[in-house]
């Protein structure tokens, strides 16, 4: 079973008088455990495609399946539940909750999933340790560097045991050393826990480490390169 399966997916946006074909007929499958990246210039439809896969947006045509579950006919609430249980998100702008500590930001997902409170520490501590955040558990996001904040976002994305992590330009705001370290950590999580990763990026460093680079232009996939 594929982790992600798209067939004939299109998404249009109305812009002024015209129509933007943000995603224009995409067929794509990702096997479980892939570490793949979408590549392409700004405006080529990477974010739109990730949003469609994550169920944040609905396609105008085509079908989508996550982990074997078709999402087209799901209600908003069902999609939210699917995201909560199966998909982790990492955003370019980190998007941590500023009033919560590192620990609490990660805990937030477990709380929403309804994981009993007594299990939270046991679930969170190893992840923070793995991502080198153990010392910072009780700091607030504003007390962290960008790289550290993005590591917290990764911790938040994986704490709920998702099958897929979608990361939209996760390294765009980071310097190259920090970006490299972050990618290493995600690669480790990918190898050890079998989580499927799909990035979007225009960072060559991401492509170097990806097992597959899917190049987009004008909402279409024009090259799909595996490097195993």
């Amino acid at each position, binding site marked *: 079973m594929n982790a992600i399966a798209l067939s004939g997916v299109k998404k249009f946006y109305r812009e002024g008088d015209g129509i933007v074909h943000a995603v224009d007929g995409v067929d794509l499958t990702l096997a479980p455990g892939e570490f793949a990246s979408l590549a392409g210039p700004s405006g080529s439809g990477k*974010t739109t495609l990730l*949003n469609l896969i*994550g169920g*944040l*947006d609905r396609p105008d045509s085509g079908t989508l399946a996550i982990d074997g579950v078709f999402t087209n006919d799901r209600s908003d*609430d069902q999609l*939210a*539940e*699917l*995201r*909560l*249980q199966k*998909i*982790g*998100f990492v*955003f*370019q*702008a980190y*998007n941590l*909750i*500023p*009033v*919560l500590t590192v620990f*609490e930001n990660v*805990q*937030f*997902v477990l*709380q*929403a999933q309804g994981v009993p409170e007594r299990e939270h520490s046991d679930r969170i501590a190893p992840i923070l340790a793995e991502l080198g955040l153990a010392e910072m558990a009780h700091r607030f996001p504003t007390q962290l560097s960008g790289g550290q904040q993005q590591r917290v976002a990764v911790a*938040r*994305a994986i704490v709920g045991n998702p099958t897929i992590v979608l990361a*939209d*330009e996760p390294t765009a705001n980071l310097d190259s050393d920090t970006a490299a370290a972050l990618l290493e950590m995600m690669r480790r999580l990918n190898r050890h826990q079998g989580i499927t990763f799909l990035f979007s990026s225009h960072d060559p460093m991401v492509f170097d480490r990806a097992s597959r680079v899917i190049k987009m232009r004008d909402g279409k996939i024009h090259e799909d390169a595996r490097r195993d």
Partner: protein
Amino acid sequence: MLWVKIAWRNLWRNRRRTGIQLAVIIGSMFLSVFYINFADGALATMVRAGVRSGSGDIAIYRQGYLSDRRLSDTFPAAPILAGLARDPDVAQVFPRVRVPGLLQSAYGSRPAEAEGLDFGREAGTNPLLDRKYFVAGGLPHGPTGIVLGQTLARNLKVKVKNKVVWMAQDARGQIASGLFRVSGIIHTDVGAVDAGMVMAPREAMASLIGRAGQVHEIAVLLKDPQQASPALARLGPILKAVPGTRAYPWQRAMPDLASLIEISAAKQKFTVFILFVIVAIGTLNTMLMSVMERTREFGMMRAIGISKRAIRQMIMAEALVLSMVGAAGGLVLAILVGLRTSTAGIDMSGVLKGMDVGIAVDPIIKTGWDWPVTAALFAGTVVLCLVASLYPVRWALKIRPADAMRTY
């Protein structure tokens, strides 16, 4: 619980805004509670004075007297007084005769209403006989001593110990008159009392109108004024002793005072309503700003799959914390202030000066404690803030994560 933690910390994210809204809630809760308690005290004082100088908690009249005030509508007092004396809940009874007429001095004459009362029974309870209102003389001792208002005394140019003549129709329509001596002059700031009231010994007045031993009114003061309804019910058998008599609660006997109290209650409700509107608008505004500032945050939450319900709970928890802290603060403030104003009282003589409510009232108002209404105000404030947060909740739920998260 993480939701409450988020709510609490978010409130302190914008200290200024939260502080202002908290002050609004504290202030309105304080004002509402204090105002209710003040009115409670002021109205209680007024009713107390009105009941004691007027109809009593319960008034007994001959049927029809309340509406027509016919001089001939008297009834024998003794059988009813005897019955009332055996009722354990009755504190005091004031039998009275009311005679409109003309008071004459060597200088001239003025119309007035004479109230024939038992000075011995009423002294110490009827506020009009309070020492503090006497500007000259005192209570009469003999059967011809009378007390009159200062304006009336001035108009007639009479002083204490001067002789005056009271002239009136008797119960059969004949002109009757009696010679009295001024024993005391009172000044109450109540126009009707100062310019037109004569208090005279009851028997003298009753005899003057040819109704010795009879009265127009028996004012009954209860040990517990709250128990007027059961007391009224028990009066039935006692009144049977004199057919044609009826008992009324003070609200019926003094409809002006009753409607004054009702108007005050309506004013209170209106004031509280206005304060609530201010709190509602303020809370809605505060919560909406707070939610709008966090568009990205809520977008992120929706993106990672947080349910609408959880987001609603998060925002409402914020409103709940805000309103509870505010209402509790206002309540504590009102209690602290009330502890003082309920014992020491507030001197309203400045405000009451020149204001004539028709009753001689002590200008030192001691605030009361209206706990049921206070509890309702607390609950009302909290519910109101929760309701006011529903619009911000709706706004937050409309955020589309795909839009909120876009970084162009």
